[in-house]
């Protein structure tokens, strides 16, 4: 039987605000433990929350960018459960009246050649929890002797985005998550870094026989700390579920933990702990009745979103859809691209060098485009030098590594290594003649109709010039001399 997976995502995003969600503590990252705290976010007896308006604005902004309806009446609830990273043992969150709901995101599956739409169930706002550091047991919660709590992150505004179960294959989930990141980046409301934990993914996944409408029993996967692990974790879990179903086993509704090193998911809950969050409206906070004029104002100030930017890249720079999608996948790469083009380099060629060469170096080093030494100026200069015939594409590839390593400009590397392309016809002609003289066999073969022989002769010229000879010119001159 053929099966299909049903995938939905829950994404938590920490917002970029100066102060916390419900108090004026600072939100600085990486400070000494328990120094970004005040009586409110420590849950001291008697303290009260007050809503940070900027966080509301940022959530509304995100809701609008995700094509959601913005709630004109919204409220905060208390979600009650005990956990040592929660100062009040309840989290102020939203329940049946989220700020935004009913949206969608279009996701271009470039490689696969289709576009899919992922529904956004809701976008709501809550407060983040503190951080636990486990002591003993190799720093993991299981086996630790005790733990230390740091409340610096407790109370930082946290936006939760929940999708409809609209994805069917792992790569769709990955593409969606990346698209979502790009959208949020363009809004500037979060730095959406998986590494820093300002973007966190939880996945729900079930399988069902193809053609069946009813959903299967779903599991939730946690600890997906990168887009890669999202895709891998899902692939593993789908395979596991299909195998279980085929073996006649029942899928248990549970939370599973993804282990990046073993490449497997495993049951997280050892014992059945029924959560009963006992949501009720937070009596310390009054409802929000957002003014439609304010929402209108936020709408009018929305920046260009990835979809619009992608379309513009195609129109303005004449890029194919594939290029435009890749370049606008992150705000940083789209910004990078536009800056390089603005420096006078050919639009299509900049795109090629970014999505092929630069991308492969970034992948290999596991870096983001704004984390490496190569800047738009480097790419622009490189492309301009190729287009002007100063260096060949081959040379450009050769020096890319050094440029990437050292951040030296291509013009400097070329000069240091003496790699400027020889485009002087007489200089090349002399070498061509020498090569013809030294390789009578190949000359004979070529004249006898063997086209490959020409390639060999071109190669000899390039060898003698250490690759610096203008290949087009070499070709042209060889053909002339041999005809």
């Amino acid at each position, binding site marked *: 039987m053929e099966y299909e997976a049903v995938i939905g995502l829950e994404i938590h995003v920490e917002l970029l605000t100066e102060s916390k969600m419900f108090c004026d503590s600072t939100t600085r990252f990486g400070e000494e433990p328990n120094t970004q705290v005040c009586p409110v976010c420590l849950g001291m007896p008697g303290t009260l929350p007050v809503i940070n308006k900027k966080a509301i604005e940022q959530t509304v902004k995100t809701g609008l960018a995700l094509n959601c309806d913005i709630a004109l009446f919204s409220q905060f609830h*208390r979600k009650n459960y*005990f956990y040592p990273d929660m100062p009040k043992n309840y989290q102020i969150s939203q329940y049946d009246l989220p700020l935004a709901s009913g949206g969608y995101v279009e996701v271009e599956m470039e490689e696969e050649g289709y576009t899919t739409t992922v529904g956004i169930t809701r976008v709501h706002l809550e407060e983040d929890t503190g951080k636990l550091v486990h002591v003993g047991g190799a720093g993991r919660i299981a086996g630790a002797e005790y733990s230390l709590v740091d409340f610096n992150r407790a109370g930082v505004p946290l936006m939760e985005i929940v999708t409809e179960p609209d994805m069917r294959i792992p790569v769709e989930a990955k593409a969606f998550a990346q698209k979502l990141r790009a959208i949020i980046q363009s809004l500037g409301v979060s730095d959406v870094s998986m590494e820093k934990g300002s973007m966190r993914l939880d996945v729900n996944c079930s399988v069902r026989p193809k053609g069946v409408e009813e959903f299967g029993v779903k599991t939730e996967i946690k600890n997906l700390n990168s887009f890669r692990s999202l895709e891998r974790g899902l692939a593993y879990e789908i395979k596991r579920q299909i195998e279980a179903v085929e073996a006649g086993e029942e899928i248990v509704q549970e939370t599973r933990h993804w282990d990046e090193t073993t490449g497997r998911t495993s049951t997280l809950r050892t014992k059945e702990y029924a959560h009963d969050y006992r949501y009720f409206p937070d009596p310390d906070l*009054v409802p929000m009745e957002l003014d439609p004029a304010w929402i209108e104002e936020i709408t009018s100030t929305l920046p260009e979103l990835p979809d619009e930017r992608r379309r513009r890249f195609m129109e303005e720079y004449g890029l194919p859809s594939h290029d435009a999608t890749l370049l606008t996948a992150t705000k940083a790469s789209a910004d990078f691209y536009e800056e390089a083009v603005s420096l006078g380099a050919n639009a299509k060629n900049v795109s090629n060098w970014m999505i092929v060469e630069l991308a492969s170096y970034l992948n290999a080093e596991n870096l983001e485009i704004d984390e490496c030494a190569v800047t738009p100026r480097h790419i622009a200069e490189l492309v301009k030098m190729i287009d002007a015939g100063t260096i060949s594409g081959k040379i450009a590839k050769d020096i890319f590594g050094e440029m990437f390593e050292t951040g030296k400009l291509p013009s400097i590397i070329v000069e240091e290594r003496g790699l400027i392309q020889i485009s002087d016809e007489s200089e090349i002609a002399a070498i061509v003649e020498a090569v013809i003289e030294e390789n009578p066999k190949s000359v004979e073969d070529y004249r006898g109709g063997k086209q490959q022989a020409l390639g060999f002769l071109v190669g000899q010229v390039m060898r003698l010039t250490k690759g610096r000879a203008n290949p087009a010119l070499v070709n042209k001159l060889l053909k002339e001399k041999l005809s």
Partner: protein
Amino acid sequence: MTLYNQTIAELHKKLVAREVSSEEITRDVLERVKDVEQELKAYLTLTEEAALAAARTVDAKIAAGEKIGPLAGIPVAVKDVMSTKGVRTTCASKILENYVPVYTATAVKKLLGDGAVMIGKTNMDEFAMGSSTENSGFNPTMNPWDIERVPGGSSGGSAAAVAAGEAIYALGSDTGGSIRQPAALCGVVGMKPTYGLVSRYGLVAFASSLDQIGPFTKDVTDCAIVLKALVGHDPADSTSLEYEAEEYVEALQRDVKGMRFGVPKEFMEEGVEPGVKQRFEEAIELFAKLGVEVDETTLPHVDYALSAYYIIAPAEASSNLARFDGVRYGLRVEGEDMIDTYMKTRAAGFGDEVKRRIMLGTYALSAGYYEAYYGQAQKVRTLVAQDFEEAFKKFDGIISPTSPTVAFKIGEKVADPLAMYLSDIFTIPVNLGGFPGISVPCGLSDGLPVGLQIIGPTFGEGIILNAAYAFEQALGFKERPSL
């Protein structure tokens, strides 16, 4: 000259006239505390040193010819449910026995800013849950009119302190009658202002949507003075209202002739003690003499108020008290692991009444019961409030006995929680609607004080103070406790 038995207004005059110093007043009150505290046990913590220092600061100001406010240099007692920086704040609970806050509640801060002299923190029912102060985690407080009887609760320590002259005035908190009922039982004036009029920031929450801070004073004039000092918008409390408070002391002098008061017939059907009923009927006659018209009215849903209250208040409390877990502050009983520690800490730290209400509230919010209990109770709340609004269309205020009984014997109702709950039957509906209510002495029954409750519409503090003052002047109640 005995000073401890005088009012704020009298002492202020003497201070300004330099007849006495604040230090003399403070020493006199502290002396009185020494004399009676062993029998009364109104205080949990005394702050003698800080009090004398504050008094001397005010004296220095007076000596320097500076103008002082009406509360400057006057000793006040603060219910131990308000956070006081550097001064132990226990909420009369073992779980907070050694908790020393790092911040001060807004209401207390306002008074201290006005030069108030804090004598200490008063006893109460643990976390303000109770009507007799017997639920204190440390010891009961005795009624100065008869030390075998309770002072009422939950603010019994504050009421007893003011009645016995252990403070010139005091602060309490009122969630379902916790200021008005002990004021009645101790023969002093106590007021619960309109919800949102006084900041709750720093008031350790029992039931957030019902809690309000208010004054205990020896007479109505003092009540108006203290109220004026307490009110004001606080940006740290989202439920604090932006309201320009009127001049309450001036309001006292208005003519009450032509005012109309309603007596809810439902209240008189309840089990009111004959002695209390008699004093109340005399009060109606006295009002008639003052030209105030008193008629029967109806609050059709008020019979359901107690039920709704005993769902809503415990529900909010169950969440509010979750933070007492032995992690950040307070008692910790070390268990095998985190959960075991939570369970043991809370079992050891909370008394029976607190546990009972936490469980009641947890149950009312839990899955499957929310709609039947909490949801339904919130709707009853709407109806109760509407009943009052309807009555206020015809009447300036509503009057009733504050409590159906006089002070009862210590231990009398401890075994029967429901019987204890009934002693707040006339005060609870007022909190559900957020209205202001005042209890003013209305004579004695068998040598024990009876209180008259006057309830006003939202922001009707001026109206009820005015009526209470006229009543107080007409009645001329001058008896003091024997102690």
